[in-house]
């Protein structure tokens, strides 16, 4: 590693420590109510971008994995220790993503989008059917002593983990393969890359994170209703946040999550009766005016500044 790498590593670790200390600030409750969704969406959007960034597949399955994670905790909380449940949730996410990936990643882009959109609905129905006919009302209540702060810390730890995993993938053969696939899938095949396999692995990583996030969040909701756990809205929010930030850099989604959560908060608190309308409009504005994401915009800006500086050379 070079010196600058050490610098950025220190910076990143410092930021994480700062973020983790947030709940300890007195009167930080309102801040926390924003920081918690930011942390949650950062994990979701970053892990989403790990898959969708390089493969260009828009996955709307986040809600499905999230719901599965929440249900694992809901069903098992009374007789399995919580940390084990997190592992089971992650594992379920991996298995589900693997199955779905093998079945659908051969489909073309738009079919994949629709399929994943339906996936949350499909799983919700299977889960409720099983619950209805076999387990009864078990799995609905999650009464634990896990406080908001602990949930937040778990999410921060997950954020660190997702960044670490993302960084490791980037440096690995897998990451390199993905960049080639993203450029030209035919060439990738001729280079001996198993593109379907790479996509499935990534989808599994992303599904695992989403499921664990669902599991972590479950205690916060106390009562798990299927229609809310498997919410398609969540999937879309993750997509739009990641795209707003930019999916080609590891930290891109983070840059999208923060402004979007804040914007959301401003809309929700200032225009409580027109929330949905304004959300729709802001959604449209993002699609029309920031198509390359904030990161893209930033990079353009940096580029134009460099060009504007006299005597500077390219690169």
């Amino acid at each position, binding site marked *: 590693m070079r010196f600058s790498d050490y610098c950025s590593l220190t910076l990143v670790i410092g930021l994480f420590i700062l973020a983790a200390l947030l709940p300890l600030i007195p009167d930080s409750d309102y801040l926390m109510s924003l920081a918690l969704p930011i942390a949650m969406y950062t994990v979701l959007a970053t892990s989403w971008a790990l898959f969708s960034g390089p493969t260009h597949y828009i996955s709307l399955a986040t809600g499905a994995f999230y719901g599965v994670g929440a249900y694992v905790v809901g069903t098992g909380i009374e007789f399995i220790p919580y940390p084990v449940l997190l592992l089971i949730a992650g594992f379920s996410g991996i298995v589900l993503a693997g199955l779905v990936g093998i079945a659908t990643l051969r489909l073309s882009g738009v079919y994949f989008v629709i399929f994943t959109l339906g996936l949350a609905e499909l799983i919700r129905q299977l889960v*409720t059917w099983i619950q209805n006919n076999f387990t009864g009302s078990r799995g609905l209540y999650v*009464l634990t002593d896990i406080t908001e702060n602990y949930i937040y810390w778990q999410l921060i730890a997950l954020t660190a983990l997702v960044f670490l995993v993302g960084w490791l993938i980037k440096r690995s053969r897998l990451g390199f393969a993905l960049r080639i696939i993203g450029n030209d899938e035919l060439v990738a095949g001729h280079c001996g890359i198993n593109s379907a396999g790479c996509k499935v692995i990534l989808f599994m990583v992303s599904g695992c994170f989403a499921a664990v996030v669902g599991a972590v969040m479950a205690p916060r909701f106390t*009562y798990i*209703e299927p229609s809310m756990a498997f919410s398609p809205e969540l999937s879309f929010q993750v997509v739009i946040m990641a795209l707003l930030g930019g999916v080609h850099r590891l930290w891109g989604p983070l840059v999208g999550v923060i402004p979007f959560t804040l914007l959301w908060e401003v809309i929700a608190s200032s225009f*409580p009766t027109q929330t*949905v309308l304004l959300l729709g409009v802001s959604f449209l504005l993002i699609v029309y005016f920031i198509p390359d994401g904030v990161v893209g915009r930033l990079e353009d800006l940096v580029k134009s500044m460099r060009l504007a500086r006299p005597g500077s050379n390219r690169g």
Partner: protein
Amino acid sequence: MKQLTQLIILIGAMFFAGLSSAAEPIKIGAVAPKTGPLAGGAAITQWPNIQLWAHQINARGGLKMSDGSKRPVEIIEYDDRTNPAETIKAVQRLATKDKADFIVAPYGTGLNLASAPIFAKYGYPHIAVSAITDKTGELTKRYPSMFFTLGTTTAFASSVVDILKAMRDAGEINNRVAMVNVADAFGIELADSARPIFKAAGFELVFDKSYPLGTQDLSPIIKGAKAASPTSFVAWSYPPDTFALTELAKIENLDVKAFYTAVATCFPAYAGKFGASIEGNLGAGGVNPDAPELQDYYKSHKEVTGKDADYWAGPVTYASLQVLEQAIEGVGNTDRAAVTQYIKDNSFKTVMGDWKFNNQVIDQYWTVGQWQGGKFYGVGSTGKAGQKKAVIKKGW
């Protein structure tokens, strides 16, 4: 459009109320769905009652404080889009940023339970009206400022069974019951607790199926239930399915002596849609609409909000606001701990009769209602006065 003008009028009213009494308003937060799956229900039982309550209080100058001054109420509304994460965020925002003095409980079991820790954390009295759960004991122990008013799942299920049992003992129906439920938390929980109760009472569930939330065509359900030739039909249903099941039962001429659909049977829109044919239909909830205080309530509800109130959760929501109102005036200031304690210790006169919380739970409540002569009368309860006798349904 209508809503917009109403809003303007409301704001105007508040403005003038604010002018006439210089006292600082009491901030009341309100979080409930305006969009999402539960928005339809909240638009009938939650929002209009908050509007009515605020209107009435401000019309009489505000809440009386111990120093003799009158403080109007100011409602801060948030839409949680039927998303528990948003409910939590909105309640937290109300508590920390808006510094609301009190917060009206959210709408729906899930949203109430999700936000309960926040209410507890900041010491807000949390009169969870539209929450039906069997875990009231555990929840009230965990959250000392949480109150329940609508009843428990088991009470709802056993009340229906009791009514059917009475009918059977009178020789009006036989043992054959068809039961269906919507496969969402509410329906699953009710069906799950109803099954053993039916069995214990000697009923036979000749048809027992669930259907997914959002099913467009429920006719296979009604056809299937009809084929099992029951004399009673029980559906633990949500509003859209309540309407659909009733319409289909009518079309198919499902000839049962007892026809029960859960949520929304008590909605005015239900009567509006089906007219006289719903005579004898049973549903969740119920009130005693002949009680004078309720008659006043229905009249002013129509005047202020322009809509008819329903026959169950709406009046209960209003009653919970009356509890809050009387507790604040009883304490004479906005000390939340004192108000919570006051709610625990005192009894209240509400549109639903006299209320006294027993271990933070109202244990006398309506469970089953029936359309009789164009009104939805309570026919099953846990010890409410003015209960009518359930009658059998005589065709569509």
